[in-house]
């Protein structure tokens, strides 16, 4: 590969100055015109039939312009399984579900009016544990499951609460267990957590007098919002414009469509007005996606030499009241169910189950944190029972080039062992530092969970002076997309990065991007940008060849000038080429240069419905986390003394930003390992603000030693692959493994709160 100029350097973030000066515009910072404020009325029962909704008092309240209920929203919405009402229609399925929405001239009037709406419910028995929900006598949450529209790679069981049953059968699991010397079987539990981006969900919608719908949204994926709204409201796509500003953190909760649809019928009633909804923290926590809880049973068979011969994994996911997105998390966890290990015989059943808890949905890791928790904990058990170093068990079974995943996909470009070894060396693996101190390692793998044809595209406009605009549909939510994509464009175009402008998306002007999720943008959008740049560069050469009357093969472009390699005096500036180029005779050669590039995976396939075999992964990113902890045995407080994280980025496009992601994911992982758990009481979310739901702060965040491993991804742009979600995955198991090492106590769930650790110590006594 030719030497890289921009890719691989830590250029300054494109959004840097805006963000440190407070001038970066988020949705709520924009003044867009005369505005109405919307507010939801939320259900006060977790499961119940709506007997009556009285909106008369609310409608009569001063300042109120309109009050709508579910019957004003005839169509459902959903990404994979169309099961979700904008506003509950006949019944409510979770506590806090929106049942009505008010538009008023002030936020205050809207909030007051909401209090005046009277809703009567016939409460139905609720179900709050997915294991209970799978039983024959459980109350049915979606009676019409059989009639819901669904992408045909999911397998709901109408008449039950099972929204998806993903089956995977690889090899011969019975034979695998027969070959094993030891069989280990354990149960694990991962509770719900919340993304809590500091910016809550917000949307503003305007129904133009010309019938055009404009949506400003905190959406991670404006194109998906447009697609879902077009379908739900039966509007052609060219009549919907979705604009994403800078997003104040996403982590998955702003994927798919969320709040936008709530205000569209209101906006339709008042053409020309902007109707805005801003979720407060509490609404954001209980009304948007929550990470699905997972109850799992994991059984592994292993030979005395440490080789795992068989794995049987049953996962029961708490999908919550609506699983339009959650069904795919369950699928992804299923097809990835061996984690970072090459296991020949696998039987997995992964169930997405409706309950009357808050809506389950995508969170950084997309099922991998929860699923690989079990794997990485069970490896410790294997090591203990066989008396082999757990690092060694990981090395023996870890995937290498040519290994197959649970789905039977062959992985390439892998150096998982280097990731493990790097963190092990960093934390001084093998050296016991004292009583109540322990060390732990865990590994990870993740591929983007996306449809096999999830596409990206890019347009590059070369200005008359040779500067460029890169137009893409990906969103900037902190991950550094604008910078990384500009670097790829700069590299491919050979135009300096400071001559490249890039903006956040607007579906009327920026080309299609499926979603900014799954750590896929660097790869997918990056590839389309590279192609667009190559297309533009090709045009530059063709025009220059014509202008200079020189074969293209003899020309080279240095970013400012195209010249002949044979005679440097034969040359043209980029200005001459890009500014509607003409010959000396005045005859035009070519108009403005517009490069286009698109990408769709060609290496992915559907999965066999019975065996789950196929190619679900666009690329696989591996990594590892190492931790050393000290436990106060009296209080149960876990102090993290060392934290090391390694990720195989293929090629770090921007090493500084790559490390930012690595640190950020590790910190989020640590926060879930030690503190975070959403608590419910019969569907009522108890800790729904920052007083009760605690996340990591600067003063309890230890220093992280981070390592970028670079095993180039053959088909990634310049060898790069995405790493945004991955660093989170192995943190909880690494910390738990360290705590187990310190105390010789098993933990099959997290967070490892002081009380939980203390209790485990008491139970052991």
């Amino acid at each position: 590969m030719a030497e890289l100029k921009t890719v691989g350097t830590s250029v300054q973030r494109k959004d840097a100055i805006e963000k440190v000066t407070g001038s970066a515009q988020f949705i709520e910072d924009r003044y867009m015109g005369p505005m109405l404020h919307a507010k939801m009325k939320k259900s006060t029962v977790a499961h119940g039939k709506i007997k009556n909704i009285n909106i008369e008092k609310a409608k009569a309240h001063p300042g109120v312009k309109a009050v709508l209920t579910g019957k004003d929203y005839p169509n459902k919405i959903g990404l994979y399984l169309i099961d979700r009402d904008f506003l509950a229609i006949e019944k409510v399925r979770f506590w806090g579900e929106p049942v009505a929405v008010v538009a008023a001239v002030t936020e205050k009037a809207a909030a007051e009016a909401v209090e005046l709406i009277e809703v009567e419910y016939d409460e139905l028995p609720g179900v709050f544990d997915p294991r209970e929900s799978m039983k024959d006598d459980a109350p049915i949450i979606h009676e019409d499951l059989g009639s819901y529209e669904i992408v045909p790679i999911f397998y709901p069981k109408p008449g039950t609460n099972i929204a998806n049953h993903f089956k995977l059968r690889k090899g011969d699991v019975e034979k695998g267990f027969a070959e094993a010397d030891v069989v280990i079987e354990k149960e694990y539990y991962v509770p719900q957590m919340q993304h809590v981006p500091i910016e809550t969900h917000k949307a503003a919608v305007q129904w133009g007098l010309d019938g055009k719908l404009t949506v400003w949204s905190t959406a991670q994926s404006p194109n998906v919002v447009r697609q879902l709204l077009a379908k739900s409201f039966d509007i052609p796509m060219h009549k919907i414009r979705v604009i994403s500003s800078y997003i104040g953190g996403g982590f998955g909760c702003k994927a798919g469509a969320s709040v936008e649809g709530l205000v569209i019928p209101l906006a339709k009633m008042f053409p020309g007005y902007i109707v805005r909804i801003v979720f407060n923290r509490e609404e954001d926590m209980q009304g948007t996606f929550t990470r699905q809880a997972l109850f799992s049973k994991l059984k592994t068979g292993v030979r005395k030499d440490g080789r795992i011969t068989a794995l049987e994994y049953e996962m029961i996911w708490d999908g919550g009241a609506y699983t339009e997105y959650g069904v795919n998390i369950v699928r992804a966890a299923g097809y990835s169910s061996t984690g970072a290990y090459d296991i020949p015989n696998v039987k997995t059943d992964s169930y997405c189950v409706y309950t009357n808890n808050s809506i389950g949905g995508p969170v950084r890791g997309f099922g991998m944190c929860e699923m690989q928790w079990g794997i990485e904990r069970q490896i410790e058990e294997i090591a203990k029972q066989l008396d082999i170093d757990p690092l060694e068990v990981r090395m023996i079974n870890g995937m290498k080039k040519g290994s197959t995943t649970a789905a039977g996909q062959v992985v390439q470009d892998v150096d998982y062992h280097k990731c493990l070894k790097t963190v092990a060396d960093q934390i001084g693996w093998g050296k016991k530092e004292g009583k109540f101190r322990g060390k732990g390692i865990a590994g990870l793998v993740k591929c983007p969970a996306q449809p096999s044809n999830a596409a990206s595209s890019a347009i590059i406009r070369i200005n008359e002076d040779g500067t460029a605009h890169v137009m893409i549909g990906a969103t900037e939510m902190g991950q550094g997309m604008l910078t990384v994509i500009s670097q790829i464009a700069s590299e491919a175009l050979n135009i300096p990065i400071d001559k490249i402008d890039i903006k956040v998306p607007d579906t009327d002007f920026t080309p299609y991007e499926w979603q900014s999720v799954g750590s896929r943008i660097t790869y997918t959008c990056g590839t389309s940008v590279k192609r667009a740049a190559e297309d533009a560069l090709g045009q530059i050469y063709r025009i220059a060849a014509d202008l200079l009357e020189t074969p293209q093969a003899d020309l080279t472009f240095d970013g400012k000038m195209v010249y002949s390699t044979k005679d440097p005096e034969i040359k043209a500036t980029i200005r001459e080429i890009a500014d509607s180029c003409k010959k000396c005779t005045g005859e035009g050669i070519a108009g403005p240069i517009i490069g286009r590039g698109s990408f769709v995976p060609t290496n992915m396939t559907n999965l066999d419905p019975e065996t789950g075999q196929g190619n679900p992964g666009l690329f696989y990113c591996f990594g590892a986390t190492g931790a050393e902890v000290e436990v106060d045995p009296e209080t149960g407080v876990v102090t993290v003394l060392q934290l090391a994280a390694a990720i195989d980025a293929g090629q770090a496009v921007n090493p500084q930003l790559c490390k930012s992601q690595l640190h950020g994911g590790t910190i989020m992982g640590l926060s879930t390992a030690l503190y975070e758990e959403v608590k419910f009481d019969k569907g009522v979310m108890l800790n729904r603000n920052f007083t009760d739901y605690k996340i990591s702060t600067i003063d309890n965040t230890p220093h992280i030693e981070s390592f970028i491993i670079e095993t180039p991804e053959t088909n990634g742009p310049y060898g790069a692959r995405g790493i945004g979600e991955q660093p989170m995955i192995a943190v909880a198991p690494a910390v738990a493994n360290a705590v187990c090492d310190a105390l010789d106590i098993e933990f099959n769930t997290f967070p490892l709160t002081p009380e939980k650790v203390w209790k485990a110590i008491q139970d052991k006594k």
Partner: protein
Amino acid sequence: MSEKMAISFTVNGNRETREVEVGHTLLKFIRDELHLTGTKSGCEIGECGACTVMLDGKPVNSCLVLAVEIDGKELLTIEGLTENGELDRIQKAFIDHAAFQCGYCTPGMIMSARALLERTANPTDEDINQALSGNLCRCGAYQEIREAVKAASKK
């Protein structure tokens, strides 16, 4: 009841007199009336720090101050840190160290950092941790933030 009161104050160096709703918080006033939207709302209960501003030289959560309370006081928001387009040393250090990701908590974080450096010229890691523990950053830029604040203190 929608009571209004006239107040006079200084914001980012400029004297202002305004009528304010007594029911409004300083956060709402800063954003909706002064149109200084760099100050962010994240929780409205003083737990996240995104709305941190300086009042008479001290950092406060503007969601927990009433707008009327700033009568006679001096308010500094993130917009007041740049002078003639020149970033201050903390802003520069935040850029150098990539001490932010989504940028939503950043204005509040920088205001807390500024207040720290005004009272402690050479802060230790522990000083930084203490001063910024009320500013949540869900993207997890804490390590870079510590480095940036330290670097800024040395400028």
